[in-house]
């Protein structure tokens, strides 16, 4: 029993980790305050679920989820590319509302608020991940691979060019770099990883509906990015573990489930407040934004 519970928590940590490090790539490393990240997660989850329900193999649904989210990431970057800071945040927030509205109202495709039940658990060439232990292994492998790929990106000269754009876009342009291209790529790559996280989520829970992808779901991820520290992948991972597991003991000290939910929100906001006051750079944040 307790084992199954821990496996469940670790699977969530893994999925959140992918979501958080990909948001970190956009926010911390590229300076794009993207509040539409949850929409890419949503697009990935729906793409994967709809294809899986058609009987397509998991690996295909998984990659399709990533690519579909990436395409939307790139498309979103085109009109928002020249927006800075708060304005970009607002525009991307608008995008996430649009995506949720489509998921709610395009009932012919998504069944709207009824959601999509019965999403198959993944299997790879005959090997089934229906067992949660094996699903955890799958999530950990994908999360580790995502971490390594994003780490490679940010440590490469390309990553430095993203950071340069974040620190001073005009100076980067004057060095001859096409910063619009850099920002589009960053958003698209970030969206790809959010998309595959969505695919994992859909095939783990086996049921999705639009409420799983509301703004309320973005807030913990954004908290993780800020508390972990901007432009720190290590901090993001540690914050993911801490923030996902922190509210869990509440269950064992006799709080009913109906209280645990709101308590989680309170804990997050308190933690965020304390971090912003006493450690504005987060756990391992390396940068200061002007």
């Amino acid at each position, binding site marked *: 029993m307790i084992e199954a519970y821990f496996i469940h928590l670790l699977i969530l940590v893994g999925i959140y980790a992918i979501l958080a490090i990909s948001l970190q790539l956009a926010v911390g490393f590229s300076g794009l305050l993207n509040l539409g990240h949850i929409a890419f997660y949503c697009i990935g989850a729906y793409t994967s679920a709809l294809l899986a329900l058609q009987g397509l193999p998991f690996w295909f649904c998984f990659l399709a989820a990533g690519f579909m989210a990436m395409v939307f990431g790139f498309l979103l970057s085109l009109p928002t590319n020249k927006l800075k800071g708060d304005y970009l945040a607002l525009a991307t927030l608008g995008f996430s509302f649009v995506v949720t509205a489509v998921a709610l109202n395009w009932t012919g495709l998504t069944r709207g608020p009824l959601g999509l039940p019965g999403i198959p658990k993944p299997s790879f060439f005959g090997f089934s991940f229906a067992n949660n232990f094996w699903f955890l292994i799958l999530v950990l492998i994908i999360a580790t691979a995502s971490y390594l*790929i994003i780490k*490679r*990106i940010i440590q*490469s*000269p*390309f*990553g*430095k*060019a993203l*950071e*340069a754009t*974040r*620190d*001073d876009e*005009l*100076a*980067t*342009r*004057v*060095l*001859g*770099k*096409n*910063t619009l*291209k*850099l920002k589009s*790529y960053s958003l698209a*790559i970030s969206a790809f990883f959010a998309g595959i996280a969505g695919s994992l989520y859909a095939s783990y829970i086996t049921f999705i509906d639009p409420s799983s992808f509301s703004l309320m779901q973005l807030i913990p991820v954004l908290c993780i990015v800020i508390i972990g520290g901007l*432009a720190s992948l290590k901090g993001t991972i540690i914050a993911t573990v801490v923030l996902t597991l922190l509210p869990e003991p509440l269950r064992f000290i006799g709080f009913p489930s109906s209280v645990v939910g709101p308590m989680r929100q309170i804990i997050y906001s308190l933690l965020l407040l304390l971090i912003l006051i006493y450690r504005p750079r987060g756990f391992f944040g*390396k*940068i*200061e934004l*002007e």
Partner: protein
Amino acid sequence: MLTCLQLVKSFGGVKAVQSCSFEVKSNLITALIGPNGAGKSTVFNLISGIVKADAGKIIFQASKQVSSKQVGGEGINITNKSPEAISNLGMSRLFQKSRLFNNLTVKDNLLLAIDNEDTKFLKNLLGKNKITKEKEGSIKQILKLVEMESFENHIARDLSFGQKRLVELARAILNPHTFLMLDEPVAGVNPKLREVIANILLELKAKQETILLIEHDMHFTFSVADWVVVMQEGKVLVEGKPDEIKNNPKVLEAYLGE
């Protein structure tokens, strides 16, 4: 090298630049001087494509190919091209205000200037854009020129004002160019550093670099410039050799306030 023809730029009701024409000759240091608000920095921003001209033309002669980043050619009209396109034609500049990448190291700041391979995603993902010995070498060399060798791995934000200035100058020099624009390179730096920067400019001049300079320090300007363009109220008041300018009564009246 560079010709500005009848440039006009207004910001709202303020006419920053009105019908400004002048020429920058190859292999010389040309200084742009004039009182505050004369339109010098606006001219710089027009040339580097940061602000768009209301009227007029800027013709740039990329005289030789300096690196793979260059496309070169003769007499290109660069009016209202994007800053990155103009940079890639061989123009490099220093800003009046510090614009270093504050969260990156001095080395990374300089590496970014060397080429644009870092904007190619797949090449970088596959690890094919390595920091070669050649690049390391040119960074060592440029840091030696600005006397900042021991600061290679410092984060830019931790540097002092003067040190930032030197790194920015190094970055502008390292950015492949045939034409270098420096907006007040010695403003606010101490006299010793001023001498260091003056020597760097003279060293660049010895290497036949073409430089356009904005500077308020007259002693500094007259010691390095070959040609001086005096601006006032968005127009060119007079231009000539430093010795002529120094004694020109119009300049003395407009600028030196005597």
